[in-house]
Every structure is written in C-alpha cells, then in structure tokens.
C-alpha cells in the first residue's frame, strides 16, 4: 500500500521562461489532509497540474521530482490510478453527451457489468444512491450532485490519493458542508491521502491536518493546522488570517456601525 506522495522543488514556467511556480515542495500522507491555501492566481492549480504533467499548452515544468514512497515517477503514471483529481468546475469536467454510467465504463475499461457495479457502490458512498443517477446526463444534475459524481468517478479507480482543486467554491453552504463531511468520511473509511486546494481558511480549519500557504508561486509556510492558526510565522499567512478573522467576527467593526447610524 502506497503511503507517501512527495513533490520536491517543483517549478513551472511559461514558454518564454518566465517562472510562475518555484521551489514547491508538498508531501501527501495516507489518511491525512493537506490544504494548499492561497489567493487567486498564486499558482496553486499550476503546482498540481505541474506535478501531474497536465499543464496547459504553453507552460512547462522546469524541474522538480514527484515520488511515490520515495520512488520517482512521472506525472502520467500517477493520474487516475494513483492520484484521483476533483476539479473546481465539475460541469466542464464531464462530457455533456455521456451519462454517468458511460463515464464510468470509459474510466474503468472493464466489463460493463463490473463497471456498473463499481459505479453503483461508489455513488452510494458519496450519497447518490438513487438508482436513476447512473443514467443521468451532466446537464440533468445540480452543481452539488456533479461534484459528488466526480468524486464517485475518482473513487472507482481506488486511487490512494485524492487531489481536490477548490471542490467547494461553487456550492452553497449546505451543499458545501455535506461535501466536506463526505471528504472527512472518505479519509476515515478509505485512509485516502488528500490535497485540498482552497482559498478559504474555513475549509482548512474544518478538514486539514496540515496547511501549506502559497504566495506568488512559492510556498511561504507549511505547518500543522492548529499551529498555523495559533502562531502564523509568515507575514502573508498573518494577512490571510486577519482577513479570515474579520469575516468570521460575530461583532461588527466599529467603522461599519457608525456608517449604519449615519445612514439611518
């Protein structure tokens, strides 16, 4: 059983050599959730795509080693069987003309009956146990359902690691809470190692064992979640925590209260 997936000193650059991601090192462990935290455009998604050799055209991986239990391997060996990926916008990740069942058959390349059985059990695990679901087209499902369906498809390959890129961003709070419960359950039941890309410190607080903070294409701090919240070392982490605390504060800031009074 694979226990450790490590990314060491990864770099990504444009075709003309302009660096976008530099010196990124991340370690995923079985049964642990690592949150990769940062603002839009800081290089979170590019780091993942770089590690999996799935960069968009025009970008190049400039170095770095990805290793499974210490054995270096290429990104294409990892995709699907070792590392399952769940993307931010599930609607774009599905073929709109294929049912969920057809997606599963294509993914597994085994006998149809076996693919259908494995899909049914994965769908039950993500809470989509209605027998009509495998026959649905992506357009017939809500965003929350699609996100669960994508996780089910990720599970049927029985990959030991799951990378989820902003999986909760487009969901309403109730759907988001259900999805996070689901991820926590998968970690507990299957011992999945997860990398959870997010810009929301609340998501990290709810689920992560460890947090890596990214800024301007570099990891600026990595720490166990509780320590990161209690004693952030890097200035950028402190800024993110301050913005988070401001949003989470129950009492309203004095400036705002004054405004309300003035308007009323």
């Amino acid at each position, binding site marked *: 059983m694979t226990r450790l997936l490590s990314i060491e000193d990864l770099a990504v650059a444009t075709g003309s050599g302009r660096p976008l991601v530099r010196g990124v090192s991340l370690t995923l462990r079985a049964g642990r959730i690592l949150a990769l935290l940062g603002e839009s455009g800081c290089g979170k998604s590019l780091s993942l795509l770089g590690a999996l050799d799935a960069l968009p055209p025009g970008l190049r991986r400039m170095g770095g080693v990805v290793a499974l239990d210490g054995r270096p391997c290429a990104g294409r060996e990892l995709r699907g069987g070792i590392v399952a990926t769940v993307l931010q916008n599930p609607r774009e990740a599905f073929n709109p003309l294929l049912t969920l069942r057809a997606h599963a058959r294509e993914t597994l390349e085994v006998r149809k009956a076996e693919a259908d059985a494995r899909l049914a059990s994965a769908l039950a695990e993500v809470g989509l146990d209605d027998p009509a679901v495998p026959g649905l087209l992506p357009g017939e499902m809500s965003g929350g359902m699609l996100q669960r369906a994508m996780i089910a498809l990720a599970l049927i390959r029985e990959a030991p690691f799951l990378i989820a890129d902003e999986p909760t961003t487009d969901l309403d*709070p109730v*759907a988001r809470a259900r999805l996070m419960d689901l991820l926590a359950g998968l970690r507990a039941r299957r011992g999945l190692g997860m990398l959870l890309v997010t810009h929301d410190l609340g998501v990290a607080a709810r689920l992560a064992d460890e947090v890596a903070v990214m800024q301007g294409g570099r990891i600026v701090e990595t720490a166990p979640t509780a320590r990161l919240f209690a004693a952030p070392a890097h200035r950028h982490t402190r800024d993110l925590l301050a*913005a988070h605390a401001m949003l989470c504060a129950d009492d309203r800031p004095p400036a705002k209260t004054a405004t309300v009074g003035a*308007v009323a």
Partner: protein
Amino acid sequence: MTLLALEGVGKSYRPGHPVLRGLDLAVRDGEWLGLLGQSGCGKSTLARIALGLERPDTGAVLYRGRPLAGLRGAEARQARRDLQLVFQSAAVSLNPRLTAGASIAEPLRNFEPLDRRGRAARVAELLEMVGLRPEDAGKLPGQFSGGQLQRICIARALAPTPRLIVMDEAVSSLDLVGQARLLDLLAGLRRSLGTACLFITHEIRLARRFCDRVAVMDGGRIVEEGPAAGIESMARHPAARALFDAVLPPLPPGMAAR
C-alpha cells in the same frame, strides 16, 4: 423610507412549479439587505423581478410606493436609472470588443447630458472610485483579471448614480479575500453616495459583515428576516438553521475562539 418593495410576489415558469410564492421583501433607502438561500431557491428570479426585467404572475413591485410596472415616461426612465444590477459573471457581462471606458460610458450616454469630454472625465472618476486607474479606460476586458472586471461592472452600475444596486452573487467568483476587499470598497462608496444594496449571496460570512439586515429565502418565500448582527442565534426556520449551521468554523477543532 422604503425604496423598493415586493408585495405578495408569485412567479412560476412551469404550471404547478412556483418559483416565488407570495414573497414580501422591502429595501429601505441606503440600506444593505443580504438575501441568503440555497442554490435554486429563487434568489435570481427575485432579483430580475425586483428590477422590472420580468413581470411577476401575482403581486407587485413598488418603487418608492408606486407600482414599477405602471411607471411611464420620465418616471419610468428615472426608475431604470435608479435601479442597477451587477451580475455574477463579470467576464460575460462585458462586451469583449468594447474598452472598459466605453462600457462604463454606456449608461452615461443614456442618462447624462454630457459631451464627449465630460463623459471621459466621469469615466476616469468612476474608475478611480472602484480602485482602478483612469488609463485603464483604454483597455479591453481580456487585459484585466477577474477581480478587475468585477470592478468595471460595478463602476458601470454606479455610473448613473443609482439609488439601489442589486448584486446577484456579484463577487462570488473572487476568492474570499478578494470579495472582502471589493466589498470594503463598496462600503466606502456607500458612505459617500448612500446607495442601497440588495446583496444576493450564499456566503453568510459576507452578508453578516457588510449588511444591515439579512433575509433568508426558502421554497419561494422569505422565511427569516432580521438584523445582520445576531441573525444566526435568532433564526428559527429549519432552512435558515441549516444555512447558519453550515457556516465554516473560524478555527480548527479544539482551538477556542478569541
């Protein structure tokens, strides 16, 4: 005084499947009202009806106490000017072939008796108001980031000096820090302009921080309404409770809140 009121508004797109059922909601002058609810509960339908872009099947929308649908001539024109909307996706609500300046000037052309030079000056002023530079007027949408595009949309909505801006998930595509920054900017504009806002969101943390009052929608009705501060503890309706209980924790488990 009440700026905009929806009274007993009902709407269905398919017979037997009402989206709104006898909904009542009022926004006061200068007030920021947060409208919360799960995906698919009818928030966007409410927004379109509130602005007169769609007619309700039953009930009425009142603008300053008078039916919006019954306004004619100069009054209808004034209402169109006073009520502005910012959509969720900035990228698709800007014409990719128009410069930022041309997009922002569009409502000015419709509503302000300005000459070319006057419009350019007002566009520059609006760009600065939303934290962009006057030189940005000459750029095309493709040259801006998502957050900057959303600022351009807000500048365009502010151009005719509206009394109410409806933000339909207008900042949801930005990261949380970006959303808070943009809303901070709007809160500043509110202080100087006194513009009211119907802030439609599913991000309770933002509604709590930036709104005076919060209303929760479920099954085509408002099921909970109250001051933004303390709404979570007061909520009784199961749909409202489900929303508030789903708010992410501020701190990891085991760490006490400060």
